[in-house]
């Protein structure tokens, strides 16, 4: 007798329905689900006779996965924070004096701008996410009236992506301002634990955000090319919650006293003019004129 269970079938990823590229029939976003067997309630009743759970099944599957992954991620960031807090207070005794070698680095003030940008991007992300669930738009799509949900969401999605890239650019500027150069030397710029903590926090957060931006790009593709409403909802919803969490993590990290606020840069507008006056050709011309 062969194995009890039939030979394991090869799992092929969901083949898209063998439809031609041009939509046929009513509803460019796929027909609305209607195969529910009515009659009787019951726990977990099958939606379509095949164990499906109806619309929102994929979403209900993806959300817990994202939550658990983010819990793990939060533990990772949390342990980074714990390390930072311990190191900040660490000391040794030298000749009877308690020595704490924590030298707080000046935090570039562009980080405030970056925070504002990130929070704004969360707002735009949430707007994009909500528009994909707007019931009226979903119905319109099923009825073949185009893809209004996608059209609504697209600009907000692009705005989020742009803001995210701006954030990363701002982080890069902050690293440049702290004297980091690209490449090999960067690793050895950790001249102090404060600097190292700053680099670790911002570095890991930026890496997470970069993944988020990749996700946004994927969402863009999905919005434009995916045929099922459900697919777009799942992608956008997942990326949106991930994005919000990264914003929350950033606020948590930013609130920590990793460094000290940078002293305000002296505002000397006349410095620019004096630079111009004393620079070569201009000063030569001035001297000639005078």
């Amino acid at each position, binding site marked *: 007798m062969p194995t009890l269970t039939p030979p394991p079938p090869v799992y092929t990823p969901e083949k898209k329905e063998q439809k031609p590229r041009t939509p046929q029939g009513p509803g460019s976003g796929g027909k609305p689900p209607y195969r529910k067997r009515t009659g009787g309630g019951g726990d977990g009743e099958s939606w379509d006779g095949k164990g499906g759970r109806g619309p929102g099944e994929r979403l209900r599957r993806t959300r817990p996965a994202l939550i658990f992954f983010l819990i793990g991620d939060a533990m990772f960031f949390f342990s980074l924070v714990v390390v930072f807090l311990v190191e900040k207070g660490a000391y040794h*005794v030298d*000749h009877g004096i308690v020595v704490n070698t924590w030298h707080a680095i000046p935090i570039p003030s562009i980080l405030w701008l970056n925070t504002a940008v990130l929070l704004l991007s969360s707002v735009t992300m949430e707007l994009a996410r909500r528009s994909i669930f707007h019931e009226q738009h979903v119905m319109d799509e099923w009825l073949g009236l185009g893809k209004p949900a996608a059209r609504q969401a697209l600009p907000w999605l692009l705005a989020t992506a742009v803001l995210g890239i701006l954030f990363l650019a701002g982080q890069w500027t902050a690293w440049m301002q702290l004297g980091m150069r690209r490449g090999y030397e960067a690793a050895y710029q950790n001249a102090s634990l404060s600097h190292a903590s700053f680099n670790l926090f911002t570095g890991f957060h930026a890496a997470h955000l970069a993944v988020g931006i990749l996700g946004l790009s994927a969402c863009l593709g999905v919005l434009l090319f995916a045929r099922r409403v459900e697919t777009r909802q799942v992608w956008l919803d997942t990326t949106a919650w991930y994005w919000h969490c990264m914003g929350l993590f950033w606020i948590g990290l930013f609130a920590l006293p990793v460094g000290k606020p940078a002293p305000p840069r002296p505002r000397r507008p006349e410095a620019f003019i004096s630079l111009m006056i004393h620079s070569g050709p201009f000063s030569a011309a001035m001297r000639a004129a005078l």
Partner: protein
Amino acid sequence: MQNLAMAAQWWLPQDAALHGPALDHQLLLNLWIALALLVLAHVLLFAGLLLRGKKLREIPLVWKIVPLVVLTVLFTWLTVKSEGLWADARIAGADPSAMQVEVTGVQFAWYFRYPGTDAAFGETRAALVDAGGGNPLGIDPADAHGADDVVSSELVLPAGREVDLRLRSLDVMHGFFVPEMRLKQNAVPGSVLHVHFTPAKPGTYAILCSQLCGLGHYRMQATMRVLPQSEFDAWLAEKARAHETR
């Protein structure tokens, strides 16, 4: 009961510290209880498996609650007793008149430093460590307190006097373990950890390293010699003299 306890002590090394017998008593109590519970559980297991019942009977709740309550009370009692011993050993600090000795672990040896007549340890700096040149601990010559410090590679202590050990390490984590004194504490680099005890019986005892520290971990040993007070004073005076004439 006393005889059983003594029989079980065949494997435990002798008790040479003041807190040793109390610790041994708690340990043996726990061991006997564990053994009794082990035997009881296995007897129940075998009985349940080998004795066939006629009908399936639901075990009444009392047979589940009572053992649980008994175990809870038992473990609570053991915990309270042990916390008392722990508080005496570690939470209570050393007596102010305890003798101070510094223990330093390096890969793969122990050094012991006595503070000398000024009762103060001299400062040490890692940059000055030079075992070959006679300064294995890096005592700073600029510090006056270090001039009379006596460094030894065996730990000699007077019997009956409480001693407060300052544990240090120069490189990696080591474990200062004296089985016959029932004493163990890690030496963590970057920290000075204190542990105090009172050696009671004169004799020669083994000091072992109990925290993996590298390839010589199994060879990182030293000797503790406990002497009557007068002999200890003589030893220390001799060492101080030898140190001065260097």
